[in-house]
């Protein structure tokens, strides 16, 4: 039986993983984002919650000053194929080696395009707390 995300959190001797969590674009739905924030907190992570209507610039500022380990962005409006790669590119251009995890409605056929664009993980709308925490931790670990 797999550990609950809380057990994983407590058993970690590593310092808490710091995640910048944001939504790109104009969409105002933040229910999922808030739920994910709580899941990550319960999984022992520190969530720098930026919330709605962020731009790649504001996210990069935060990643830099907060020395974040992972960026989590949420999108519901089918903008993932433009906004996802754009976020990765912006981080690379700023010289920040920080993995990006995308959450939202992403059809399977778009997954390989996102992976090719450098996205470190994709979470669907029905992902459980364990899956969310595991995905973000794996992304944090994937960093050199």
């Amino acid at each position, binding site marked *: 039986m797999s550990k609950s995300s809380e057990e994983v959190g407590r058993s970690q001797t590593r310092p808490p993983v710091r995640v910048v969590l944001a939504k790109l674009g104009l969409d105002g739905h933040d229910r999922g984002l808030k739920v994910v924030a709580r899941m990550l907190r319960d999984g022992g992570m520190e969530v*720098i919650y930026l919330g709605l209507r962020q731009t790649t610039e504001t996210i990069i500022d935060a990643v*830099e000053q907060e020395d974040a380990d992972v960026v989590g962005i949420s999108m519901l409006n089918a903008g993932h194929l433009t906004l996802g790669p754009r976020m990765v590119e912006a981080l690379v251009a700023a010289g920040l080696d920080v993995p990006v995890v995308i959450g939202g409605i992403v059809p399977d056929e778009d997954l390989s395009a996102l992976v090719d664009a450098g996205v470190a993980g994709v979470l669907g709308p029905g992902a459980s707390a364990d899956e969310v925490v595991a995905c973000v931790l794996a992304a944090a670990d994937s960093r050199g």
Partner: protein
Amino acid sequence: MIPVSAVVRSVAELVAAARGGERRAVARLLTLVERGGAVADEVAERSWSALGGITEGSTDGSRAHVIGVTGPPGAGKSTLVAGWMIRLVERGCRPAVLAVDPSSPLTGGAILGDRVRMADATAAGVFIRSIATRGHAGGLALAVPGMVRILELGGFDPVVVETVGVGQVEVDVASAADTVLVVVTPGMGDAVQANKAGLLEVADLFAVNKSDRPDAADVRRDLELMLDLSGLTGHHREGVADRPSITSTVAITGAGLDELADATETHLVNLATTGTLVTRREERWRAEVRSHLDRLLLDSSHQLVDALIRGSLLTGDESSAGKSPAAVARGLALLLAEQMTEYLDGVVEDDR
């Protein structure tokens, strides 16, 4: 295009880069200090010497005006700090903010939501770092002075440490500053809460936020009354002749923030001219040394006590049988003292 660096820089490189004003280096050093351990020690040593150590003008190595901001939750502190910092930027300052939020005692995680409330400040160039308390009592008291020092190294001034002032730890953190600002709001019994939290003894300045509310006059009056009382009972900060000033603000519109900026600057000037600044910074330095000492002794004694427990010296031993727990402890303390001397010799050896 800046190439993504695959190389992890050394502490020395990071310190040099931070001194040159590189934000990324500052951020990375903050992380290293936060994590503690040997690397944090190295950062402490190098940043200390890079700052120039203790001098006549800086009796605790300080290079910036350190301001603690605290107060009951819901007072709008983040909005207030954001607006105030923007005005300081306009006045030519380079402010930085450490925003502290509590970690979940159960999971060790945290949601750090101050940054999002200060979005306009980051846009104006204010450096903002969110810190979680990470659940170690006293751990925060260790990390924050070190982090403040990194921000000073990076050339930021003033450095604001913002906490939610409901616990002793947060009050301690806020009071490890040159100037302590307590923010209250009308209608929530804030003045009473602030008093209970011990904030009235450490406050240098007050801000009554949301002062456009009809009951703002009440909270101001409550504060004045409590200050009168504390004056009568002798509870006031050492060496400060003046009563703490009370500034009315409406953070969301910006009203009163210029006055607040003036008040904090004036406070710093007063501290300097009355010689109180030197005293406070010396006390801060002593407090920081004490924190480290506590940590050192606590860590070493815990390890040894664990060993004692494992060696069953604390359970059902004949020599303990007739003694009270306090007496048993006293006996063990002597044993511990010997073992600790050995242990600490090893620790201190590294510094030689």
